[in-house]
């Protein structure tokens, strides 16, 4: 669409990347919320920061916006300190915990914010982009959740910043509101702006970002497009009914990376599903046999350790096939298996072996 003055201002800063973390660390007591993050986002990219609750997304965003300082390492926006970039009007953001400002109309609020920026877009345009033109005269504290969220989006974008940061923008939105929100976000990204959003919804990251950065325990564990992540996690899922038979030896079948039992069904994650299926056929274990491609969900679960699985991870992210963590990144295998107890892990050695498999290495390389 239009070349904006925000972008023009950014260009004036030279060709520095929009966002650059190098070795950034932020600890709170014993918790390393951000634990050595290196990340570069070039201008014009739309990037999703994907992770469970508590993975370090919000802390990373606080560092990024200069709301907090790293204990070690550096964070730069357009080649300068975050605080300076913010003061230069290069950044707009929608924070996670914001509640509506009271006793102002939507237009008053958005107009006020616009006037703080050196080269804002017209207020009417921002309201339109956020899809809240008809709410302009309403009081900001008397709107529905979805409307409030879009007002906050308008506040983030009205300054026409070169970089917009959205921290879990669609949490607590219903399906319809979510769709409307993403339509607005894409319209903004199409103007050539850099967008960074955090989410714990895999589908959102896959559908709306060019690039997904997976963060877990304060570290970046994967970085690439949705397809790349699926490939990195590797393998297909072969499942069949045990029909009362045991599971001995399944882990040693060709191609099998990990074995899991759900009720009377065995789930094998395999890097060579053909070989696995043939071997299963030889054993006669083919009742209800199914082969499915690895989903982003499987990839995500493989890339992140499972010890946080019970702390509010969206059900969709852990419900199906979770051949657990072939790509266990850390030596913390004990912690990892203990936490996975409810998954009825079969044959723990298989996990250890799997950790050395090429698929796991591939996953690591993308970091």
């Amino acid at each position, binding site marked *: 669409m239009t070349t904006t003055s925000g972008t023009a201002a950014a260009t004036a800063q030279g060709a520095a990347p929009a966002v650059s973390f190098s070795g950034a660390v932020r600890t709170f007591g014993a918790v390393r919320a951000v634990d050595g993050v290196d990340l570069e986002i070039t201008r014009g990219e739309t990037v999703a920061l994907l992770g469970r609750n508590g993975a370090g997304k919000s802390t990373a965003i606080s560092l990024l916006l200069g*709301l907090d300082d790293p204990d070690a390492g550096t964070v730069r926006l357009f080649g300068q300190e975050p605080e300076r970039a*913010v003061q*230069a009007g290069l950044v707009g*953001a929608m*924070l996670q915990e*914001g509640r509506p*400002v009271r*006793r102002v109309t939507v237009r008053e609020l958005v107009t006020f914010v616009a006037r*703080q920026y050196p080269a804002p877009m017209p207020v009417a345009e921002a309201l339109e982009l956020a899809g809240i033109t008809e709410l302009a005269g309403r009081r900001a504290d008397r709107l529905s959740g979805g409307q409030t969220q879009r007002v906050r989006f308008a506040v983030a974008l009205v*300054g026409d910043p070169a970089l917009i940061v959205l921290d879990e923008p669609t949490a607590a939105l219903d399906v319809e509101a979510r769709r409307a929100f993403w339509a607005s976000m894409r319209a903004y990204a199409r103007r050539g702006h850099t967008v960074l959003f955090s989410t714990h919804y895999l589908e959102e990251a896959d559908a709306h970002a060019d690039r997904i950065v997976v963060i877990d325990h304060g570290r970046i564990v994967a970085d690439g497009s949705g397809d790349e992540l699926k490939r990195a996690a590797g393998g297909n899922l072969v499942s069949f009914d045990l029909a009362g038979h045991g599971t001995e030896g399944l882990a040693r079948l060709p191609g099998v990376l990990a074995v899991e039992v759900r009720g009377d069904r065995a789930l094998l994650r395999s890097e060579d599903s053909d070989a696995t299926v043939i071997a299963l056929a030889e054993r006669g274990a083919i009742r209800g046999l199914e082969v499915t491609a690895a989903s982003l969900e499987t990839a995500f679960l493989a890339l992140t350790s499972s010890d946080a699985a019970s702390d509010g991870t969206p059900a969709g992210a852990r419900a199906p096939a979770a051949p657990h963590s072939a790509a266990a990144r850390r030596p913390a295998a004990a912690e990892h298996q203990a936490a996975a107890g409810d998954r009825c892990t079969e044959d723990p050695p298989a996990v250890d072996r799997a950790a050395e498999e090429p698929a796991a290495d591939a996953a690591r390389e993308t970091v």
Partner: protein
Amino acid sequence: MFDYLVLEVRRTLRDTGFVIFGIGMPVLMYLLFTNIGDDVGGRWRTASMVGMAAYGALGSALNTGTGVAEDKSIGWLRQLRITPMRPRSVVIGRALTGSVVVLPAIVAVLLAGGVVNGVRLAVWQWVLVAVLLWLGAFPFTLLGIGNGYRLTAQTTGVVNVACNLGMSIVGGLWFPVDLFPGWLRSLSSYTPTNRFAELGVSATEKAAPGFGTVAVLGLWMLVFGSYAVFSYRRSARTV
């Protein structure tokens, strides 16, 4: 910063609670206290007018701090930190807001005095009373802001109400200090509220504010100002 001032003044004046308790209440109390009973003299009508105007200004000034705490709790101050607006402008803008929103209460009570209670002063005296009360309210704005940055929204509300009532009563804004027992009277003369009202009373008596009044008030301004700066510095990075 001017935009911020306009925004905040607008938000304050739209607050029904502020209009009722910050402006309506002092006027109502003034009219009640000066029209009930039979030995109400003209002198008390004037003194109480200044006292209630001061009480109204005090409440409005502290209310600015309640607003700060509220904006902190809803994340609006944090949102402001990621606009190009400088953090310092936010706190200065708030202090200026406090200076503006104390005016309605002062003007309303003075109007009630002149129009309803027939208080007669020269024009310059009216203006001087208003201006002195307006300037003298500034330390209380600083106290409110200090509370707002330092405390949570709920605590700020409670603490501000406690400051408001306690300082109003002990300072003699509601009842003449002459009615106080001796010890309370001497304590009263050290309170900022007492000296604050004293500023206005001196104007109604065609006298210059005493040195003691200015000194005590100046000292309190220093105390409240340091408190505001300290609270702000402590929390500005965490809001």
